[in-house]
């Protein structure tokens, strides 16, 4: 099934690439404006094809790899006066799903003040990468581990003991537990770059400082359209731009993680998922000047899950990711980029051993991008992944190519 999907993506890549080259100068290069510019429509299309990934390092669920993906994003903004804008983004992955990735209203109560209220399926408040996860904004092909790598933790199914969780190390792409939802499904990343949360967000800016706060239905690792546990997530971000080119940000989020159904299965009918929260914090730094750009981001997360059987998971399950990314423009239209990152997990005491609750991962990705035209970019990258533990392949080399078109 995966082979067939791979072939389908490959054939699409070939078609898109040849069509793009043939029509390189005739493709639209600017957003489509309607109704005197009150409605604008843009798009991001990327076709990615990577070599096999038997270690499931780049999978975003059992069937989808971030390195074998045809992604089409169509976004639109409709302005209704100076106070109100409706924004929507529809996304298709491998042409088999179509989802409203974003759908929200932006309200600016006072035109003279930098204060906006956004309501609906809103952009992520937390972290730096999730808002630039478009292939056009990502200098490499792979996603940072914190935003993509699937841990073995699920919000709707729970391990009954530390031993059960330890048995699932490295299996986050398809994991099954004895408590809660019975089927196998994917785990969660520390922060999801593939779904947006639903709620209300307030953003303001004063001089070099900007601040954002949001209340949403899900959590950073499990954004949701509708709530499944009665608890809300509170998230905040503070960003400072002291000099040109330097952006320093700090983020904090806390929200109920475990679904009510899973909590009830774990600790009885009176339980709700509200008390089993994810707490995440992040710090990021970006500096750019002339032809180079450097980004540093570190994210920590702790999930509290119900204690069911011994050996119990009585401490929050912690994970921490750090990534350093750089890009350098070599000549006009050509750049080189690299990212080095590590994702680690806290130790968990099982019956026979004490090890990190999921297998730590280290990834190095190097790549290059060449602009065929301003809005048509060809990227090539190489990844070296290594995992310290787990039942799957521990070391893997992956190559990938990506064609990106946007307007």
């Amino acid at each position, binding site marked *: 099934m995966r082979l067939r999907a791979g072939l389908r993506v490959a054939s699409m890549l070939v078609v898109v690439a040849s069509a793009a080259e043939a029509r390189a100068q005739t493709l639209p290069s*600017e957003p489509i404006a309607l109704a*005197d510019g009150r409605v604008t429509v843009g798009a991001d299309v990327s076709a990615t094809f990577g070599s096999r990934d038997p270690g499931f390092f780049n999978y975003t669920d059992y069937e989808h790899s971030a390195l074998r993906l045809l992604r089409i994003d169509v976004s639109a903004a409709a302005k209704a006066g100076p106070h109100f804008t409706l924004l*929507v*983004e529809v996304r298709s992955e491998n042409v088999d799903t179509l989802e409203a990735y974003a759908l929200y209203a932006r309200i600016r109560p006072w035109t003279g003040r930098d204060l906006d209220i*956004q309501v609906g399926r809103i*952009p992520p408040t937390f972290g730096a990468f999730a808002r630039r996860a478009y292939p056009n904004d990502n200098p490499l092909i792979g996603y940072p581990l914190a935003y993509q790598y699937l841990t073995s933790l699920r919000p709707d199914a729970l391990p009954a003991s530390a031993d059960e969780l330890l048995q699932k190390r490295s299996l986050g792409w398809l994991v099954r537990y004895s408590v809660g939802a019975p089927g196998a499904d994917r785990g969660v990343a520390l922060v999801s770059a593939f779904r947006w949360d639903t709620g209300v967000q307030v953003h303001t800016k004063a001089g070099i400082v900007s601040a954002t706060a949001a209340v949403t239905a899900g959590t950073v690792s499990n954004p949701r359209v509708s709530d499944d546990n009665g608890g809300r997530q509170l998230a905040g971000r503070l960003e400072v731009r002291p000099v*040109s080119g330097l952006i320093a940000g700090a983020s904090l989020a806390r929200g109920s993680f475990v679904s009510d159904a899973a909590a009830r299965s774990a600790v009885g009918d009176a339980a709700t998922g509200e008390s089993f929260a994810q707490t995440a914090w992040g710090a990021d730094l970006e500096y*750019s000047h002339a032809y180079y750009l450097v980004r540093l981001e570190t994210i920590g997360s702790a999930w509290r899950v119900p204690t069911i059987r011994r050996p119990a998971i009585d401490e929050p399950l912690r994970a921490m990711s750090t990534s350093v990314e750089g890009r350098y423009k070599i000549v006009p239209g050509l750049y080189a980029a690299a990212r080095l990152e590590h994702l680690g997990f806290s130790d968990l005491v099982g019956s026979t051993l004490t090890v990190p609750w999921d297998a730590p991962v280290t990834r190095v990705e190097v790549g290059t991008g060449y*602009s065929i035209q301003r809005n048509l970019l060809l990227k090539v990258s190489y990844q070296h992944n290594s995992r310290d533990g787990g039942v799957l392949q521990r070391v893997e080399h992956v190559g990938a190519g990506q064609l990106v078109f946007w307007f």
Partner: protein
Amino acid sequence: MKETPRTQGALFLTFAAFVSFAVIQASNQLAAARNGVIRGRVEVRRVVPQVERRPSVTDLGAPPARDVDDRLRSVVYLESAPRRAFDVDEGGHRVMDQRNETFVPHLLAIMTGTTVDFPNSDKFYHNVFSLSKPARFDLGRYSAGHSRSIRFDRPGIVRVFCDIHSHMSAFILVFGHPYFAVTDSQGRYHIDNVPPGNYGVIAWNEGNASDPKPVTVPDGGAAELDFALR
């Protein structure tokens, strides 16, 4: 008569002297001719709308306001020019500012050899670049109060963009001769110092060029030529 090397040499010298005389006479006549003017008006019937921002779906707030490009201005130029015109190397500097996320002016017409300065008058970074064949360059990111420059040595149309703000764009038209003019806000133009003769004249606006229109520039006089684009 049998030609000897000496007679061949004499014939060649005579021919060379005749040609030199003819060239000198012709150039004297040309110098004596007084240059003229081509003037007129370009009517842009459908103004190309300003490039809108891409839908800012990922932004945490509304983007700042920006200025509006002046897209009414056009360039009028001679399709071909006297050979001597191409010997001119203007040099000098012109300025294309970056202000309120807009290139000012939006349209610049220059001669080869001209250096264009791109100062940044905004409080944030800009990154001017072009992937156009006549001038492929990237000036990198630089902050307010700083400027970068690029010399244009090849004629052609250069599209200029900002790598950070995708809605910023401008045109620089680089000519190998000096016979061109940018219209004013009313669409009027005049091309000065055009040697008398017959020419084809083209009007250009936002990538749309007219067919060449024939015009005769009289000795020391003016030729009127209007255009309607789109």
